[in-house]
């Protein structure tokens, strides 16, 4: 990885080097009164070559799936097929304005409808909304749906959200945004939610129980059906956090487990590129009794046999429906992260139902293959058949050598692998969470296993070599304390 310093774009640039993308224009001062205009615009003018070189160099100092393997637990860093980007970039779709009349957007609406319907079937929900922009946004949407549902029922006392201690950090944060309190549920010695624990927690104040299955330890909650029955008997709703949906497609459906609400992360399970942290997309699915509360707009189909119909052979027509009195409102400026809807539907086509089932099976196979290959060198707290991910603990390595989970991750960077997720879930000390995904070959996994074994051995024989890592990256370990104590969040023009 190139270690050369790349100056900020603001450090270069000279007046008079502008690119001629548009014809010369009159000065702004000729067009509007001075009082309405800004004084100056302190931005650099660069040649296009300056810009190309700057951002190309920045890209070279960045890992991506295209360059390295990401064993990143709970993040599902699978291959992002390029056909998906090409389709999202079709001019008719890319340049489609959200306010065009529905009759000029029939193809785009058909894409949304097909994806919604496919997801509903795949996960056992009555309907999906593509409105939320990301997973956390979808969680918020789902909790707003729950709140609206109870309000409509006149059930005012339900303000508690039950969240297992293996849950993602967004769950409690989302609960707080709808004014709900969080009750944390301790996992049992099997790393799962026990029936006793849920019986003790669920009650007349329970609004929602938020769970993921398999959970973030990579374990299937095998009593999920019974857990859901307990929550339902208490009058609560079951919410499925779809972060780990890559483990169970075509094999088991949240709807059949008893979940009333769920979200998916299209950027995880459905091969949307993560793009350095977004944009994502977070469809929300609901059981039949919650459909009226979905955010607007909703895509409605009309025509021959709309439920089982195909577009275009069955003459279906589509419209966006906004007037839904029980809806929670809308979550964003415009309808969906449509470019990602296109990508996700293309991915569904590339696989079909059988292909998606195989995706999940192979994701599980890859995870277990790594687990059994390293368990002689590191503790595996739940050493059983895991799903698409598993956790290891560097606790005893740390005790013996001072090498922490974080250090092991950093040492992987030097060997050309992204670090696994570390320190999550919180209940496993010095946690290392590994999720290889199904798109990685046996050779890649063998290479990764070799590198990880080498590091685990080095941790005991030459711990300093692990503590010093990484040494081949653009920078060495970063001073995060200084960054947080003295925030420098922007460049400033040199003073007068």
């Amino acid at each position, binding site marked *: 990885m190139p270690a050369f310093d790349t100056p900020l774009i603001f450090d270069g640039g000279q007046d008079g080097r502008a690119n001629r993308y548009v014809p010369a224009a009159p000065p702004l001062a000729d067009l509007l009164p001075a009082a309405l205009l800004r004084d100056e615009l302190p931005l650099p003018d*660069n040649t296009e070559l300056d810009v190309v070189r700057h951002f190309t160099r920045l890209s070279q100092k960045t890992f991506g799936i*295209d360059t390295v393997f990401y064993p990143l637990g709970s993040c599902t860093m699978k291959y992002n097929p390029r056909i998906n980007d090409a389709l999202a970039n079709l001019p008719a779709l890319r340049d489609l304005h959200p306010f065009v009349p529905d009759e000029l957007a029939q193809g785009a609406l058909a894409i949304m409808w097909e994806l919604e319907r496919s997801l509903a079937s795949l996960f056992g929900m009555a309907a999906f909304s593509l409105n939320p922009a990301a997973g956390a946004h979808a969680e918020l949407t789902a909790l707003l749906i729950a709140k609206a549902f109870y309000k409509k029922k006149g059930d005012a006392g339900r303000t508690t959200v039950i969240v297992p201690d293996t849950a993602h950090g967004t769950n409690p944060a989302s609960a707080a945004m709808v004014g709900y*309190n969080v009750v944390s549920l301790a996992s049992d010695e099997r790393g799962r939610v026990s029936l006793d624990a849920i019986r003790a927690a669920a009650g007349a104040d329970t609004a929602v129980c938020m769970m993921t299955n398999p959970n973030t330890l990579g374990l299937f909650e095998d009593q999920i059906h019974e857990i859901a029955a307990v929550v339902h008997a208490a009058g609560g709703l079951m919410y499925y956090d779809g972060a780990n949906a890559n483990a169970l497609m075509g094999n088991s*459906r949240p709807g059949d487990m008893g979940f009333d609400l769920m979200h998916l992360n299209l950027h995880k399970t459905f091969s949307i590129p993560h793009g350095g942290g977004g944009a994502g997309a977070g469809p929300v699915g609901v059981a039949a009794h919650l459909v009226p509360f979905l955010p607007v707009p909703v895509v409605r189909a009309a025509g021959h046999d709309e439920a*089982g119909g195909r577009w275009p052979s069955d003459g279906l027509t589509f419209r966006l429906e906004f007037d839904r009195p029980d809806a929670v409102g809308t979550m*964003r400026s415009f309808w969906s992260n449509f470019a990602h809807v296109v990508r996700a539907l293309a991915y569904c086509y590339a696989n079909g139902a059988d292909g998606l089932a195989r*995706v999940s099976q192979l994701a599980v196979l890859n995870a277990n293959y790594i687990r059994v290959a390293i368990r002689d060198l590191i503790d595996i707290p739940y050493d059983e058949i895991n799903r698409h991910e598993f956790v290891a603990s560097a606790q005893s390595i740390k005790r013996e050598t001072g090498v922490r989970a974080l250090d092991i991750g950093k040492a992987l960077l030097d060997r050309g692998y992204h670090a696994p997720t570390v320190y999550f879930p919180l209940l496993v000390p010095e946690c290392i969470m590994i999720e290889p995904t199904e798109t990685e070959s046996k050779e890649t996994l063998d290479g990764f296993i070799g590198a990880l074994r080498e590091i685990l051995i080095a941790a005991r024989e030459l711990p300093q070599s692990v503590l010093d890592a990484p040494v081949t990256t653009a*920078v060495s*370990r970063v001073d995060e304390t200084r960054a947080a104590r003295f925030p420098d969040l922007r460049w400033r023009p040199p003073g007068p």
Partner: protein
Amino acid sequence: MYTPHTARDVEEMLRAVGVTSLDELVRVPDAVAVKAPLDLVPQLSEIEIAARFDDFARATSAGAYLSFLGAGAYRHYVPPVIGALAMRGEFLTSYTPYQAEVSQGYLQAIYEWQTYVALLTGLDVANASVYDGATAVAEAAIVAINATGRRAVLVSQAVHPNYRAVLRTYAAGLDIAVDELPYGAAGNTDFSALERLLADQRYAAVIVQTPNFFGCIDAPPRAAVTAIKATQTLLIGVTAEALALAALATPASWGADIAAGEGQSFGNAVAYGGPHVGFLATTSEQLRRIPGRLVGRTVDRDGRTAYVLTLQAREQHIRRERATSNICTNQAHCALIATIYLAALGKTGLRDVAAHNLVQAAALRAAVTALDGYAPRFSAPVFNEFVLRVPGNAAATLAALRQRGIVGGLDLGRFYPELADCILMTATELTTAADIERLTAALAESAPEPGRGTIARI
């Protein structure tokens, strides 16, 4: 698809794991096992997928129409260099840059985005982006709620209706009141009741948009800002057309404590609504209340300049239920596109594009309001869109234009019943003189006969 496993690989790997079949590996209790076949789209090869999407694209006929739509999503010229750089796999397929050592490039680009937003808005700090303009406004309102401890916000009716809708959705969750300020005859926010409304210090923030939803430049007058500051209310300045920031007085210059808005115009496609990119900037005073990710500049162990996600203790994965917001993603890739766009256009290019928008909007407005029966609805100065009053109703006029291959703009009756005879029309640097002529000719052809409009309105 996209799985590399040969039959032999699977066999060897199953043996290593100690199971005999893939089914055994993924076995679940019978009660929750999939039994019936799923109703999914059929599996297709890539060539068939491409053909299928060509069908979708053909059935999306809007591309064949001349369009004057804007209203929060704008088609601007995007130089090819933007896509060529942004679509590099290192950027496109990278994860959130938690591993700073292997993410220096992306982190620096986001630091540059934060700087661009700060320079464009005139404020001290900006975050790494939020979902879009509407959620930026909602998040800004939450900052104000947290800063003041008050439980209500006051928003201008000239703020984008979808932004107000999202604000109401978020407010319902948080049990916050949302009250509105009307718009006045000129198309600006009517601040006449402001002082009275603020007197009991009930509002955490006053939210205005400029250019507002009607295209009118709508920075609050000095007296309004004085009343806002005097009651320790925060002023949130919204921008749905980020390009306007290159030309108009900055939110900081007229007193905004927070600037929130939509950055799609900077190189991002309209894409039927997303993904777009929200921006959020504020004063140093509110630094610790900014939601979402922030990139900071620091040093590495060897003293070299390094970038890192910072102030993470504010965020959901640390604070959990005490976080400033539940927001987890930023729109990193959209923000990257915007950053490359801003770098490529530069000061000169941005000013030129802004000037072309002003010129074309003025030309369009002059041309259509010269027609008999058509008039500007509002008198305030505009940036690149304006409200046209038509004879009869807007829906009928737009339908007639559609017959002639033109999407004439947005029917304002959809959001403002009292403006059912009004169209919001937009011009950008991509609008040509020929486009304007085509529109005016079509309007002249489709105009109701003299008198008929009047009869229809009785």
